[in-house]
């Protein structure tokens, strides 16, 4: 997914942090692999 547009989604850049938060909040992680070009 090309990440070139503003979004209200609070994207993290660290998978480890996302996993930590997901465990704390009882949520899943949405992992989006993107290519800027």
């Amino acid at each position: 997914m090309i990440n070139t547009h503003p979004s209200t989604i609070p994207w993290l850049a660290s998978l480890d942090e996302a996993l930590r938060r997901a465990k704390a909040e009882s949520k899943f992680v949405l992992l989006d692999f993107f290519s800027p070009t």
Partner: protein
Amino acid sequence: MTYPEQSVAATIAAHCVPVQINTQDRSGADIVARYRQVWTPDVRVLAADGFELYRWNGYLPPFEFVPQLLVALGQARLRQHDEGGAAAIYEEALARFPTSAVAAEAQYYLAVARYKASHDGADLMNGWGKLRARYPDSIWRVKQSFSET
């Protein structure tokens, strides 16, 4: 574009912690390798221990992204043995997006989730009956065709 849409952001916020990895940046190389990532767009739904529960490739506009994410979350809950939670998500996907590309998948697994929760075969057969009626040309109809008499 998809992510700026409020419906997309709201669905993500309700269920997920979102993280993006730039596949062309060296800092993400270990994650790219860990999940054997080869093509973008590439979206994964992970459990909190990093286990991959669902994934899909390819761009989706908002009206297909939201139902696809809901179906992914339903599968994720099902694989965590939360059949009630899975059923609720599948019901939402079907109620809000009955004509989406993943609606048939949602109907298929809604029947599965209800059956696994109730252990009543009628729940499975009734749900798959709706699949046959509503999505007769889908591959998901084929996947349950062994049950047809």
